[in-house]
């Protein structure tokens, strides 16, 4: 179902115009690149790949692509630090790609925005778990890796349903109290976002 506030992940396509390609990949996001370019592509000569494994293992395959630069990040945070360093010196002739879970994509989009990279210019592909990052609208706390709705906010304990409304700025869906009108009735949790 298309949610109008949620980004559309158009999928990887190589932008042959860019002078430099910077790719941020998480877990199964590596497949987005490997499926397209395993046979080689001229863009790899101008490509810099950052990869955090997060449960999968594409290190060997990515290294074998022979990109101009390849770095295996120990954590997503380390990947973001390295990306910040790259973008601080990058030019307008750079194209940014990101593939992985929605939360990872959103974190890269947020980071890129600080460097003035237009959201629409970032090439994105969703791969992996559908788990969601949810902000509790009541206490403003963030809940990571949410797979069920309703769920209990880890910060304020309210029972929240996950609303299909997404903020790119916060990289989160909105969680709203589900039993305000009927305090004793809390619908059973259903796995929604595996």
């Amino acid at each position: 179902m298309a949610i109008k506030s949620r980004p559309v992940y158009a999928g990887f396509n190589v932008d042959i115009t860019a002078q430099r390609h910077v790719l941020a990949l998480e877990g199964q996001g590596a497949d987005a690149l490997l499926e397209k370019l395993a046979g080689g592509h001229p863009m790899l000569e101008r490509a810099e790949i950052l990869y955090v494994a997060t449960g999968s293992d594409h290190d060997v395959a990515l290294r074998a692509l022979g990109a101009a630069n390849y770095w295996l990040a120990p954590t997503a945070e380390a990947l973001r630090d390295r990306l910040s360093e790259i973008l601080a010196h990058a030019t307008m002739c750079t194209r940014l790609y990101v593939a992985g879970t929605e939360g990872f994509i959103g974190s890269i989009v947020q980071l890129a925005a600080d460097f003035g990279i237009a959201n629409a210019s970032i090439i994105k592909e969703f791969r992996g778990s559908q788990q969601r990052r949810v902000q509790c609208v009541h206490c403003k706390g963030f809940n990571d890796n949410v797979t069920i709705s309703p769920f209990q906010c880890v910060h304020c304990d309210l029972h929240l349903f996950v609303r299909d409304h997404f903020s790119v700025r916060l990289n989160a869906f909105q969680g709203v109290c589900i039993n305000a009108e009927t305090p004793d009735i809390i619908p059973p949790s259903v796995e929604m976002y595996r």
Partner: protein
Amino acid sequence: MAIIFHDETYRDDFSFHNSPESIRRYPFPFHEDSYMYAINMENHLPGKPGSSYEHPIDVDEHYVSEMRDRAIVLNEDPKRCQALPHMMAAQWDTLELLMTNKARSYPDLFTLERNGDQWHWINQPLGIDDTFVFGDQSTLPYEPMEYITRQAQGDFCIVDQRNDTLWMDAGMVTCQADWSLDFDIGMNFMEWHAPVPMAHELGIFDRALKFLMNVQQGRPVRRLNWTMTVNPRLDTSPENYHKWGPDKTTVTAQNIGSKLHLRCELQSFWRLPRSNALLFPIRQYLISLNDIATIPKWACRMHRVLTTIPDSIAEYKGFSRNRQLALDFLAPFDDGRELTLGGEPE
């Protein structure tokens, strides 16, 4: 005619009430017997003397009490007023627009003297007398948007225009009908309207966006939006939903006349001169079913509108739970007669 300002509350004991004059000037939103989404924009031209449309920025008997309620909300939750860093020029544009309009329309309540960039602003009802330098935020106790919107009824959004769309990049939102500024700030037009059912499929937002992007300086436009609220509560934010949501379950056939309120939003759109952004005031007007019942045409029409409104819209506007009780209350006023078009009381 001088305005007599009420001393009333929008929480706790809910002492809010409308005078008979306030009822008659209510911007009743139903112009025909059924309701469907429409862009329904018209030029924001001065309306009939005494009406809510007479002045471009309307001040009524609830002014002082509304501003008091705003101050309480901001004290509890400062995130109800936010502006992204690039919006400072738009904030000054907004301050200028609201001050000049209020001073022009209500010279016995508001005075603005300008000597180059040395400005002197007097707000009699709120007891404010400030001099400041226009463009220098260090000479005001708050940033310009917060400063002036703490003195203006209704919510305000400042919307930047770039990348072929509009962006909600600043706002003072303390009397909203269930949407969160903190969550929506930074979103573009399609994103912030994501939760609205049906309208996207009808292409309403594509057309509305094109229209709004062409609003010109000197030609503001307006439209009406509406919802329903239990108790005359202004702060029906998602943030506090767990506090006001339970109110909906307290409505009975005996109390619905005084408890259930129609909440009409008079929205206007103004092109701002320096920033080229759009100012979007959302002026709220509350009226109880009992008050509506004193205007036979309104009670009759409202019965017909509520009967035919699609379930998804009733759900989105938050009154599904009490819809039947409202219909039961209004039914005696509907005798099937033909009503005139428009929202004027007959």
